[in-house]
């Protein structure tokens, strides 16, 4: 029968007797646990930032760009040859099963005037579905409708940056702004999105109905021309299917022969971002693994001290055995000592890791996130380290011959 409370009491007393030694042994675990938590916090912070950016451009997003013109052997770069139309967009939505929604886009830069303020920004002609495709919402007012697109109404949705620069304290809804001298009524304000993954201010934009952009602002090389088509796939897993379906459909619609190059490009933004997210996850894992090595070293420190302690206390072990301590009484006593060392070290290490990651955020300016899971992980891992590295010394102690142990000087 093993008496756990008194075994714990015995272990605590033994640790108190050698305060300095116990503290130094714990330091190894403190540094190990602290490093694991801080490194995981840095990694988690980085990948959190990337996934925020992914959701800011819109999840499961594909972008169809027109192809490049070739003028006298000089290729002009993607998008120089206008090849996409509204009908392409409608066909993608109708015929590609993996596509959830599409938003064609015809954009240009224009000077905006309201009262005595003016501002230059990107004006995008599109359809109401853009809000769904880009996971964007309206803060105030309302969006334009399919009807507005059909009848080329002169209405506009403003991004937050535009609102700040043109209106200041004035409420923009219902006011009339001039885009390239054409009057537009402001009917809604977009919610704030922040920076895109490439560092552009996504709020510095104006949305107007696609047809209005085509007919009143930018003109078209041919009827129904659009600059790009944004596509939202039904799911992340469906992104590649959607890409294939769109490519097949557009090749057919644009009558491209089997040996000809595409006159358009499909870009998979989500996949690119996911690759980036994946690489930060690998980095997190790597940082964690390196930090765990220090935890391992701390564990070896515990084993070392426990072995010294067993040797020093051989006589005590002999006395305990003589008065009836059984194998597991002795083992538990030393294992509990080791676990106590590692758990107290673990708790102090959590404190050190959490404050350490705060300091890193402050000094390096990185986002760090201490997840409860990493704390739980580090704490239970330090407990396991105690059991693992405490077991051998405890095992050694329990195998001592009581007669020899009693005679030990």
């Amino acid at each position, binding site marked *: *029968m*093993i*008496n756990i*409370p*008194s*075994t714990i009491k*015995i272990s605590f*007393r033994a640790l108190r*007797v050698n305060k300095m030694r116990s503290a130094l042994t714990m330091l190894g675990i403190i540094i190990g646990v602290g490093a694991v938590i801080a490194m995981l916090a840095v990694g988690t912070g980085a990948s959190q930032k990337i996934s925020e950016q992914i959701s800011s451009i819109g999840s499961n997003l594909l972008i169809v760009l027109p192809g490049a013109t070739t003028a006298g052997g000089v290729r002009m770069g993607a998008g120089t040859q206008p090849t996409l139309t509204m009908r392409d967009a409608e066909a993608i939505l109708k015929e590609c099963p993996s596509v959830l929604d599409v938003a064609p886009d015809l954009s240009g830069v224009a000077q905006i005037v309201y009262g005595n303020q003016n501002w230059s920004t990107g004006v995008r002609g599109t359809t109401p579905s853009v809000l769904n495709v880009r996971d964007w919402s309206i803060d105030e007012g309302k969006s334009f409708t399919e009807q507005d697109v059909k009848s080329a109404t002169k209405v506009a949705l403003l991004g937050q940056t535009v609102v700040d620069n043109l209106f200041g304290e004035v409420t923009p809804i219902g006011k009339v702004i001039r885009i390239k001298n054409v009057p537009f009524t402001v009917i809604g304000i977009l919610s704030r999105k922040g920076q895109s993954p490439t560092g552009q201010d996504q709020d510095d934009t104006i949305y107007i109905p696609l047809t209005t952009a085509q007919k009143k602002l930018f003109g078209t090389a041919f009827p129904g021309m659009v600059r790009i088509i944004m596509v939202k796939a039904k799911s992340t897993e469906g992104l590649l299917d959607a890409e294939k379906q769109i490519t097949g459909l557009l090749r057919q619609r644009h009558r491209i022969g089997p040996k000809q190059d595409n006159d358009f490009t499909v870009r998979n933004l989500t996949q690119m971002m996911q690759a980036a997210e994946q690489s930060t996850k690998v980095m997190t894992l790597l940082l964690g693994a390196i930090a765990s090595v220090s935890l391992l070293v701390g564990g070896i420190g515990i084993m070392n001290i426990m072995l010294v302690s067993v040797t020093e206390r051989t*006589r*005590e072990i*002999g*006395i*305990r*055995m*003589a*008065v*009836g*301590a*059984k*194998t597991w*009484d002795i083992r538990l006593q030393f294992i509990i000592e080791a676990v106590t060392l590692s758990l107290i070290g673990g708790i102090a290490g959590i404190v050190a890791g959490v404050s350490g990651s705060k300091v890193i955020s402050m000094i390096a300016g990185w986002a760090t996130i201490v997840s409860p899971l990493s704390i739980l992980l580090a704490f239970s891992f330090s407990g396991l380290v105690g059991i693992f590295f405490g077991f051998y010394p405890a095992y050694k102690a329990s195998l001592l011959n*009581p*007669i020899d142990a*009693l005679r030990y000087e």
Partner: protein
Amino acid sequence: MALIESVGITKVYKLGDVEVNALCSVSLTIERGDFIAIMGPSGSGKSTFMNILGCLDTPTTGHYLLEGTDTAQLNRDELAGIRNNKIGFVFQGFNLLPRTSALENVELPLLYNGISAKERRQKAITALKAVGLEGREGHHPTQLSGGQQQRVAIARALVNDAPIILADEPTGNLDTKTSSEIMELFVKLNRESNITIILITHESDIAAYSRRIIKFLDGCIINDEPVRKL
């Protein structure tokens, strides 16, 4: 049934390639309530015999029956259980835990048989009272004299109500006056509590406190006779 029955016990140690016969076929019987002194020069096998009696060691051949149980059949933990319940040890060097109060030293055997903390404390206080150390429960070994330390050790041997006390030169580190006080305590425990006491000693005046003296030489019993009281 005799308390202790030793039947043809031998013990062979291996020192490298050399085999040393520490005991050669020792047979004897000890009845409950006896008070025995084992004497003999160094290397005569008396300590080896004592270790076997104390279940700290097992015989190479032969049988050791303690209250009818053959200890040769028992494993390490079962032997520990017997040491805990049936045997109290008193050593020459006291063997108390350092930096630990007298009370906690006495409580030590009770830690390993699962009785409650309250009862442990009660029994330890009673045992310390029985050896005349009332009021010194909180003292650490370094704060006690040699005689007092040995009394703590005796209290530790008593605390589990063990029927046997094995004492290995209990007065070896004590002066004459303290030695006789400790021996008086053993005599009292033997008479009043009917505890069987087996002690090893070099000195015949210590052996004279016993009722029966067993002499060892070269691993064999050469003499076994009752003490003639004057």
